[in-house]
């Protein structure tokens, strides 16, 4: 239903999807940095750094945008989320700080490569745990356990097999996205094959973890079978295009696949913001706030999308057009002084 709260909830979900597709892939890059191996170990790491360097900060802002819109438009939901998920959210923030700063220190010759890679591994799991906790209904009032005390109130809602499975699933999705994207970024055929191989492994992990997550799910939410079918089709498409080495198509299919996973979560939850009791409509801010937020989003988009397009065209253009890169990597890596 196209009500104002639903539109804004949709925008927030879209911002989260963008964060997963762009920022998530940057985290996945960190995973491949950690797992770099074989004769081209250093080239793999260089490729990751080169691919995420110019764009990771812009990609990161999608999360800030989602959170800011959430507390503006759904303040009750945000407050409850922040209380119940205080522990994993704080840990996730520490991960975000370590990942971002270690990456920039590494770029500018201050070391920190291992911290960057490790934080890239932990942060997505925590993000996934939070999503899993919400989806399982543990953040909603009625869904929370009845026990007393710290553990019951602040640990039990998210320390569940299902939430943990969603956490690992998120990590696998991010690594999968990164590997598929990197096949297109790699210039040398061997390096491209390295990431093609990694993309297959990650795709298989995504599949296995999706099944595990589904098995652990308590079925409190109705799953939309049409979305699941579409996701499956996109997954097959990614496999096929990777197999045929059609990397452009693989990138598109992988992005669609993961976007559908996020969308599927949103659709399953509808009309709840925090199942099983807090609906989007109930938790929405007054109408005037929603109208202004929507205006700000539209005005922001008018500035943002051309700028983002410009950024991506400059740095990802040669890759998207599949022409050899114009200039040698210009990453200002530590230069000897």
């Amino acid at each position, binding site marked *: 239903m196209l009500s104002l709260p639903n539109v804004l909830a949709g925008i927030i979900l879209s911002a989260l999807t963008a964060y997963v597709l762009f920022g998530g892939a940057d985290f996945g890059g960190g995973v491949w940095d950690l797992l770099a191996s074989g004769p081209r170990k250093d080239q793999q790491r260089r490729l990751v750094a080169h691919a995420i*360097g*110019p*764009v990771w*900060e*812009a990609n*990161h*802002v999608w999360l*800030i*945008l989602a*959170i*800011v*819109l959430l*507390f*503006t*438009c759904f*303040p*009750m939901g*945000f*407050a409850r989320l*922040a*209380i119940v998920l*205080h522990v994993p*959210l*704080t840990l996730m*923030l*520490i991960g*975000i*700080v*370590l990942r*971002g*700063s270690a*990456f*920039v*220190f590494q770029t*500018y*010759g*201050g070391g*920190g490569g291992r911290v960057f890679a490790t934080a890239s591994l932990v942060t997505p799991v925590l993000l996934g745990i939070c999503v899993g906790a919400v989806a399982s209904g543990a953040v909603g009032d009625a869904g929370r356990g009845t026990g007393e005390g*710290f553990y019951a109130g602040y640990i039990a809602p998210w320390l569940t097999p299902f939430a943990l499975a969603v956490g690992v699933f998120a990590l696998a999705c991010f690594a999968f996205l990164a590997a598929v994207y990197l096949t297109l970024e790699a210039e040398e055929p061997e390096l491209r094959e390295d990431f093609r191989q990694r993309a297959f492994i990650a795709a298989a992990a995504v599949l296995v973890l999706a099944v595990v997550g589904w098995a652990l799910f308590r079925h409190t939410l109705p799953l939309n079978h049409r979305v699941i079918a579409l996701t499956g089709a996109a997954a097959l498409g990614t496999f096929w295009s990777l197999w045929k080495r059609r990397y452009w198509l693989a990138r598109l299919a992988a992005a669609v696949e993961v976007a559908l996973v996020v969308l599927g979560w949103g659709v399953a939850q509808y009309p709840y913001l925090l199942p099983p009791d807090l609906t989007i409509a109930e938790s929405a801010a*007054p109408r*005037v*706030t929603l109208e*202004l*937020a929507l205006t*700000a*989003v539209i*005005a*922001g988009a008018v*500035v*943002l999308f051309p*700028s*983002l397009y*410009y*950024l991506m065209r*400059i*740095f990802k253009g040669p890759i998207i057009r599949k022409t050899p890169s114009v*200039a040698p990597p*210009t990453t*200002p890596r530590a230069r000897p*002084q």
Partner: protein
Amino acid sequence: MSDLLAARSQMAVSLAFHIIFAVIGIAMPVLMVIAERRWQRTRDPVYLDLAKRWARGTAILFAVGAVSGTVLSFELGLLWPRFMALAGPIIGMPFSLEGFAFFTEAIFLGVYLYGWERVSPRAHLLAGVLVALSGAASGIFVVIANAWMNTPTGFTFANGAFTDIDPIAAMRTPAALPQTLHMTLAAYAATGLGVAGIHAFLLLKNRTSAFNRAALTIGLLVGAPAAVLQPISGDIAARSVARRQPVKLAAMEELYETRAGAPLTLGPGIEIPYALSLLAFHDPHAVQGLNAVPRAEWPNVPLVHWSFDIMVSLGTYLALVGLWAGWLALRKRDVTMHRRFLAALAVAAPCGFLALEAGWTVTELGRQPWVIFGILKTADAVTPMPGLIVPFTAITLLYCGLAAVVSVVLYRQIIRSPA
């Protein structure tokens, strides 16, 4: 340590840390753009080197600022969920606009940093200008949200809930203009004089370095005018506080009893008659003392008072250094060769940042015990989660470690003179 104190301390550490990166993220792009413009005009490689070094500095600080800013946007809810549940719909607007401004800044910083060889010189410079503008805009939006906490407007408050909310009126809160003006100038003054001061220190050791002289000049160009204008904006801010938050002013000046023609206390036993009334209202009007409100509604008076005095003293020093620079420039003296001026400037390097921290201590502690002045107490806004000393300790350790690493990397990347 009580949970409330732990939450307040965590917020304080997070803000104190983030603010340094935020102000440098606002002002450093201006320095970088001036250097690039000078390089484009003169083709003097010193300016290109400077622009690139400052861009690298901006990149490092912006990255840390971006992630520590993310922490803050979450902490608003993690530590103060009841505040956000109540105030989110009213002050979400400036935060949303800040989100977009920040996004623009991140995009064009990417273009600037990695685009030296990929876009035309003009487009590159324009990207730098956009970074500077969007940086200033995002700072202004965030300060507007803080201003609203000091002088909340745009709603009717009844039975513990806001009705008839008007987010636009909330953004036009009376404290918005004085606070944003004071903060934006502070960003330019602290960063500009900070950079100039570091290079003044290096010049004192080696007077011939063209690199240090160019850096010092550009730093002064940005920092000195802002430092000279800052006392004027400070006066505007103080008069706004006097009218709308008299308790905060009384704490700033340690004025316990309401007095007409209130004196300004400079130290134990040193008073300037009428000065406080004149400063606060520009006439010998009565200044409300702390005794006008119950003791439970007083902020921490000594801390607010001392922070205020530290800020004013440091700000005065910076303004004098700025005036001195202007005087030397008027007399066509080379500021980079004037030994005593260089020494004064080197001393000024950390002062702007210390003044900034002191100033935020005044405005934040001075608002206590309220989180929304007169509406919601901080104690009623805090999260019910126990054991808040744990996240407080974790965040503090994290930021201490980060501060150390950032200092080392910055020194290696920017300040160290080219070999």
